[in-house]
């Protein structure tokens, strides 16, 4: 979902809802199960240097092992990305790897844990050059 420029007046609606408590749902449902197939999107902006590519490939290998330890499996997108990086055929294009749950549905708690675990995993990665260029999205 995106908010178009023409629709930015929608912010006013949010302000109204926040200042009128009856319009805002008050019940937190943190354990609510959402029937979606969640994906985690990891983006690494690549640069030209071969050394950086080598480090990023090493990171992908480590990420793959981590994802498998979390009971998830990788889509083919990640493998294509890895090969793409190894070929040295990319420039500055941000590349995306997608991690897909093995199950067809996952709870919000599971998705949130994946996000948190992947962020921790990146934070623990020894290579600062890779750490600085990696971001995660769980969708």
């Amino acid at each position, binding site marked *: 979902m995106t908010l178009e420029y023409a629709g*930015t007046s929608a912010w006013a609606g949010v302000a109204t809802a926040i200042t009128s408590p009856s319009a805002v749902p008050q019940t937190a449902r943190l354990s609510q199960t959402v029937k979606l197939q969640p994906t985690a999107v990891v983006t690494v902006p690549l640069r030209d240097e071969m050394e950086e590519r080598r480090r990023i490939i090493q990171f992908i290998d480590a990420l793959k092992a981590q994802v498998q330890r979390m009971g998830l499996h990788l889509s083919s997108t990640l493998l294509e990305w890895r090969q793409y990086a190894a070929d040295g055929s990319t420039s500055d294009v941000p590349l995306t790897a997608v991690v897909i749950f093995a199950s067809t549905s996952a709870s919000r708690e599971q998705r949130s844990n994946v996000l948190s675990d992947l962020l921790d995993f990146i934070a623990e990665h020894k290579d600062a050059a890779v750490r600085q260029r990696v*971001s995660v999205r769980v969708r």
Partner: protein
Amino acid sequence: MFDPNDFNGVAADLVNGEAVPSPACIRTAVGRSYYSQYGFLKHRLEQNYSGSFGDKGWHSQLCLVCSESTQKGIRKIGKALEHLWELRRDADYFPNREVTLTEAQGAVDLAVKCHERIRNLGDNDLHQIHAELQLLIAHVEAGTRRRL
């Protein structure tokens, strides 16, 4: 005194309901989740080091100092803050970039975990963050003065 963590409660209210929230609610929520933890960490630092932020926010600098800390525990806080900050930036400044309900709910949950970690920071951790932040602020301000 206002507790910045209450911002995350507002974010949760916006994205936890039965009905699918509007894009404006989703975008508002990620901003509140980010500010809840940015504000909490800033508050903890200023409790020990009054005035350490001056009159500026130093958002990206705080994220950078934490995410590149020599201590893993602080780096984890930094990566979480950085994630929330990037979502908040997309939500508020880039209307054409997608920010989903799943991401907003993830931000609320991540802020809850981040809060626990920030709360557990010890005086030595806060000292390290403060010292590195001051170095970075001095570097940025020296660069600004050179350009003027």
